């Protein structure tokens, strides 16, 4: 336990060190380079713009909207991926269907689907969620299938030996047995979903009235509020790092690392 928390503390320390170094380079560039603040604002200005976004603007609400959208899309996407997994493992035809679908759609960037999505679902939250689902389902299916196929035979033999129902077999053996792959799938899905969301928001504009972080960046851009634009980008980065390091970091150290099952 102690070891784990030390690991996380170390990671935080290293993160801060490198981020601090980047900010230092930024400050030096602002001081030495003769940049217009419209091209490269100082970190202080960006910090001010960030605080202003929270106090005078609705950045907090926009962050919440973005996170809710990603969460909704990822949940639905994961459920769909599970359904595909069942389809793939239940029959040979199902398997060939799922692997074909994955091969066709996995390389397709969500943003490339935009024109079609606008025609089908319009420009509301539904379209954004659709694009997130698209970016989640395929890497998730790939990982779930890999995880399912990597479960060692002895685990299944033990399960059969104790006559587990297929329900218990799934939750007590299949799920934990393929967890390293599920986690890897979730991490890839999250990264893809977050990127897709920010791009989609920047194109669709305001969803739920105020839009999300992507819309915040875009609206700062069109009004040439460069510090505000940077603040939005900083928010996107911070959320990305927080989810990656803390949410996934903690899940990882409590599961696959503790179990000695890291991929």
């Amino acid at each position, binding site marked *: 336990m102690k070891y784990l928390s030390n690991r996380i503390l170390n990671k935080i320390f290293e993160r801060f060190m490198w981020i601090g170094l980047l900010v230092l380079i930024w400050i030096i560039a602002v001081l030495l380079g003769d940049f*217009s*603040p*419209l*091209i490269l604002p100082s970190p202080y200005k960006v910090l001010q713009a960030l605080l202003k976004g929270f106090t005078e603007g609705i950045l907090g609400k926009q962050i919440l909207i973005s996170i809710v959208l990603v969460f909704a899309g990822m949940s639905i996407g994961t459920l769909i991926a599970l359904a595909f997994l069942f389809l793939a493992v239940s029959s040979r035809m199902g398997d060939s269907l799922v692997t074909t679908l994955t091969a066709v759609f996995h390389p397709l960037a969500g943003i490339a689907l935009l*024109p079609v999505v*606008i*025609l089908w679902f*319009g*420009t*509301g939250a539904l379209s954004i969620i659709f694009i997130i689902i698209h970016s989640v389902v395929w890497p998730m299916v790939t990982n779930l299938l890999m995880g399912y196929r990597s479960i060692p035979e002895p685990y299944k033999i033990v399960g059969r030996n104790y006559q587990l129902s297929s329900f218990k077999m799934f939750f007590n053996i299949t799920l934990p047995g393929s967890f390293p792959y599920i986690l890897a799938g979730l991490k890839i899905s999250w990264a893809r979903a977050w990127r897709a969301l920010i791009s989609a928001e*920047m*194109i*669709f*504009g*305001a969803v739920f*009235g*105020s839009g999300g972080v992507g819309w915040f960046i*875009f*609206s700062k*851009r*069109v*009004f*040439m*509020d*460069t510090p505000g*634009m940077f603040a939005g980008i900083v928010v996107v980065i911070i959320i990305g790092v927080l989810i990656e390091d803390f949410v996934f970091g903690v899940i990882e150290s409590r599961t696959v690392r503790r179990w000695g099952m890291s991929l």
Partner: protein
Amino acid sequence: MRFLTILSISLIVFSSCSNNKSGDISVTIAEQYGLAYAPLQILKEKKIIEEQIPGIKVNWVKLGNTAAIREAVLGGKVDIGFMGIPPFLIGWDKGMDWKIFTGLSKAQIGLVTWREDLKTLNDFGPEDRIALPQPGSIQHILLSMAAEKYLGRSDIFDNQLVTMKHPDGMSALLSKRDVAAHFTSPPYIMMELSEPDMTLVVDGKEAMGSDFTFIAGMVTDKFSSKHSDSLSLIKSSIAQAGEFIMEHPEEAVAILKKDYSIPEEVLLSYLTGGGLVYSPEVEGLPKFINFMKDKGYLEKTPENIDEIFIEQDIK
């Protein structure tokens, strides 16, 4: 996004910049899509600027939106840009060193809807989404003016905007789905209004209460101070191209048709229908400034018109 834009433009322009040392003038002009930019097409095709200023090298770039043009100007990759007055003012307000040096076109722009129940702005509910190029664009400012005029609140529609390029906005409107109305400009406004069920809710002139310049030309202070003679020649070239379209629309259509996938006779009707006037005059500037300052889009106003406008006689 922005760095990519700057990078791509710098790649396009790099060669021309390095030519400067010979003493020849090089100018990079950024434009956008739409019929309001037609005189630039004529300039390009007939090489009018090159004729007027021997030895000049003209580079044309076409960018997707005004923000991209501003960023390119800011990055020093573009000397002259064409856009609506409001996005110019936002750039100036934020400290960009540039001025308007010519008008390009006046046009009918307005809000088109497919919904029968939306007869006036009063009929729009909070769920009725309005597509337009982007907040801070001339379409957005005119919509705000109309909202102020008829509903007493300029920002009432700000939370139901959908940012779309004109062609996307048109297909979203024509698909009659969740985009209730589209604030657009020629030729899209004409194309949309020629479809069944489409009606005009309000147009720019009505919102503004007077004529106004739709697209104007902006020049960086760096370029205008160095090449003021060339600039006035460029301005007169633009005027000449505009006159050419107004006086010889058939010949103009022959040149323009390859850039717009519109049948020749339809294009001709757009050019002669009165919805488009090409003129180097700049109209409506004070009204835009006052409204935008009033609504907080601008933090400052120019104390003297010289700060934002270069008055030049056409040679």
